[in-house]
């Protein structure tokens, strides 16, 4: 490593010392927590506006120890898993089709755009009548949330294939399969994965919306229930849980995405 560094024209001056990344990252949340504690301690805000952090923490512990937390989280996760696999799978197929065959795209594009244009929240009341309030409704909605970004990113990735690469492939007289394996896949997997990551994030968001509107279990329902009971600590605990799970999903997928893109020049 050091041999290479010597040959690079980097400045030899020592790098100015910086706070490590995690410390600056935590500065703002820490400040927020201190303010929150102070607000609760000195009664700046009524507890029904902003319950004390300790209360939220106790509520979280209660939820965890009573098993309610695991139960609601499992409901939500199961719905995401089913909806996401359905939607992302269909999205890949549609995206590849639309990317490769212009006539296929011409056939489906208007209908697809029409479906895309109606946000998840618009479909909920419409689908509620034929599907009822239940698992099917939730899974269909979650699947739709994954379908859109995966299809669009897959299609765009194929459209955005660098022309020179295709020309090189043509010069080498690559067959369809060779073209797919040597040019299309390496160039498209990273952007497609971005779509998958986006899809999973939207699935989670869509699920929360459906659970708020039409559900009797799951983390989104926890918010509805807490609000109806005027238990603000429960609402905030629910928001924190939803945020944490979304963050875990996104961080894990971002790590995979970085791995997939590692071969690309910076």
């Amino acid at each position: 490593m050091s041999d290479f560094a010597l040959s690079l024209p980097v400045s030899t001056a020592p790098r100015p010392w910086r706070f490590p990344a995690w410390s600056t990252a935590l500065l703002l949340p820490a400040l927020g927590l201190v303010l929150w504690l102070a607000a609760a301690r000195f009664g700046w805000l009524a507890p029904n506006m902003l319950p004390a952090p300790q209360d939220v923490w106790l509520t979280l512990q209660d939820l965890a120890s009573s098993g309610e937390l695991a139960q609601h989280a499992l409901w939500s996760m199961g719905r995401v898993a089913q909806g996401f696999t359905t939607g992302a799978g269909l999205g890949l197929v549609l995206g590849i089709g639309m990317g490769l065959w212009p006539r296929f795209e011409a056939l489906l594009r208007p209908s697809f755009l029409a479906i895309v244009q109606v946000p998840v929240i618009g479909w909920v009341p419409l689908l509620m009548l034929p599907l009822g309030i239940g698992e099917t409704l939730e899974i269909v909605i979650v699947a739709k949330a994954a379908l859109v970004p995966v299809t669009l990113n897959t299609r765009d990735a194929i459209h955005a294939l660098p022309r020179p690469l295709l020309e090189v492939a043509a010069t080498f007289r690559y067959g369809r399969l060779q073209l797919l394996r040597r040019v299309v896949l390496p160039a498209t997997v990273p952007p497609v994965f971005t779509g998958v990551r986006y899809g999973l994030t939207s699935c989670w968001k869509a699920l929360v919306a459906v659970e708020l509107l039409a559900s009797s279990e799951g983390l989104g329902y926890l918010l509805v229930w807490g609000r109806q009971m005027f238990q603000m600590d429960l609402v905030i605990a629910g928001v924190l849980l939803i945020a944490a799970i979304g963050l875990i999903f996104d961080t894990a997928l971002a790590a995979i995405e970085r791995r997939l893109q590692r071969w690309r020049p910076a």
Partner: protein
Amino acid sequence: MSGSLPSRWLGALPPVALLLAWQGAASIGWGDPRLLPPPGSVLVTAWARLADPGLATALGVSLGRCLAGFALGAALGLGFGLLCGLSGAAARLVGPSFHALKNVAVFAWIPLIALWFGMGEEARLAFIAVAVVTPVALNVWEGIAGTPPLLLEVGAAFRFSSWQRLFRIRLPAALPSILTGLQLGLIHAWLATIGAEYFLAKGTGLGGLLIEGRDRFDMALLILGVVLLGGIGMLLNQALWRLAVRLTPWRTTPA
């Protein structure tokens, strides 16, 4: 491609097929007519509704709300994205918190916003703005931070001042990304408008109409509502897309 259908007609095939299947299903008495009324009766109800001035008012209310919330959220997002894109210190300080917060599913904000802003118009606008900030900020940030280093070197060679660097290099280079962010932001704004109308003081705007349709089991009203929802969203998106094409003609976007 001689002798084949032009592509614009091709795209009409699936909806027409769906419509025919729907009419067919309705005429052989397949399914509950309450859940799936024949297209003709939906059309009649829809027409009656369209003539009703209440619908136009509801649409106007929703659209105005959407655009106001969008303007608020887009301004905040642009400012925040610029700050994080330009300043490494800001990015390190607020970036991680922002990335964590953006993962809060947007509807999870509703109970909190209802709590802090009440159930009135401020709450609705605040919710729409929250939904818009994230995509705008993210895309502006990525666009600004991702300025090709080569361009910045050219700027350095020309001894550009930092203003010149911003206005001649970074912003134009980031423009496609910024426009993508605004486009996404507008879609989110429209979605959030409907959401706000569901959850925060029901009964106004297009969202209120949809809830009314659901409560009354009025499939025709629901279908009309969803079509309007999608149609208006599409028009909003088209408008921004046209603007994007006009502003960044060098971008080769598939039509």
